């Protein structure tokens, strides 16, 4: 690994130059599934930020006493515990949204972003920078998803946060709500970001 990362640098990197979604192409599954509604995306994002930040923090705190053989299982266990807590909170305080998100809350556990950050950063770095790295990754992810949702919901349902905003003559683009819409939107985003050529973040061979 390169020179020890400062917390601030790690955080900022996660937002843009090493953004987990359009640079590392991670965490796609939920990116496609929940982004047909802005509110769901927001809640999903917050849940992920919580789980990632606390997860990376905990992994970092335990990094010196975790036996190498079970490093991965320990990380999984930690992440799973935090995700369950997120789900319990959702069921208690936002039951309607929890139902809409369904299985995808649980799938935060297998979201490659969290595991990726734990393995690549938290396992080797101090707690505070790891926390910032995790939080940054979560925020970077949420921001990208919000951008996608801000296009999919208005075009696909004519609403924004469940408030109708499109003019009466607008026919919703059904494509945006279903699976292909997600794929195409994400591809478009990747295209736009990467088209900046030399100025593109990451600019690594895919």
């Amino acid at each position, binding site marked *: 690994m390169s020179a020890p990362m400062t917390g601030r640098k790690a955080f900022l990197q996660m937002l843009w130059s090493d953004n987990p979604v359009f640079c590392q192409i991670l965490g796609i599954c939920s990116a496609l599934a929940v982004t047909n*509604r802005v509110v769901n995306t927001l809640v999903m994002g917050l849940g992920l930020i919580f789980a990632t930040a606390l997860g990376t923090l905990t992994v970092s705190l335990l990094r010196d006493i975790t036996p190498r053989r079970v490093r991965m299982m320990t990380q999984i266990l930690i992440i799973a515990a935090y995700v369950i807590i997120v789900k*319990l909170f959702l069921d208690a305080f936002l039951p309607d949204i929890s139902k809409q998100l369904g299985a995808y809350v649980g799938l935060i556990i297998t979201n490659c972003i969290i595991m990726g950050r734990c393995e690549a950063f938290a396992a080797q770095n101090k707690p505070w920078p790891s926390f910032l790295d995790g939080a940054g990754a979560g925020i970077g992810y949420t921001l990208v998803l919000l951008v996608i949702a801000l296009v999919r919901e208005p075009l696909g349902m004519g609403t924004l946060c469940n408030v109708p905003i499109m003019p009466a003559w607008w026919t919703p683009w059904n494509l945006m*709500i279903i699976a292909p819409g997600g794929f195409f939107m994400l591809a478009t985003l990747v295209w736009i970001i990467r088209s900046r050529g030399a100025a593109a973040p990451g600019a690594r061979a895919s």
Partner: protein
Amino acid sequence: MRERLHVIGFMLVMTIVFGGMVATVNAFLKERIERNRKVASYRAILEAFGTLKVDDERGAIEIVELYEKSVRQEGVDTDALFVLSSEPRKQAFYLVGDAYWGPLKGVMAVDLDTKKVLGIAFIDHTETPGLGARIDEPEFRNQFPGLSYAKKKTDGERLTFVASGTANSDEQQVDMITGATETSRALAKIIQRNLTAFLEKAGVE
């Protein structure tokens, strides 16, 4: 050998610690979660009767109060019957069955005298958000209040689901949801089955 024991011991401790953490959070939130489930049921029943409007902002406690005041339950579990205390000819029953993506649970209320549907509401389903899940939306549900179910087709069907935009309520028809044909069809079957069972029990032909 020692290393292996150390590893197993570590995992065990971890599991207990984190399992314990989760169990603690669960203990704190369990009641609230249970109450949410109950309120969701009550809410659906009240909405089906029309006592509660769809965007009613009343809180959990008020809903429970309203329910206990207005509705009487007869029978248990999925066979339960809900009777509006002030007008006993208005009754509601569960809609239970397999929708397209998974099990569905809802409520339908009818007026046995006028032979019209009072309303429909959903408690649980796993249909696709933005598509099949739109059965929750007012636009879809508002087709039901006032819909007659009196006539029965030769195959026993009472409420027919047709292509979106073409429904004729005089013909006891309901608009399907665009892009959610399978969910709509599944729902039609569930309604048919549960409505028929209810009418049989109520002694209507």
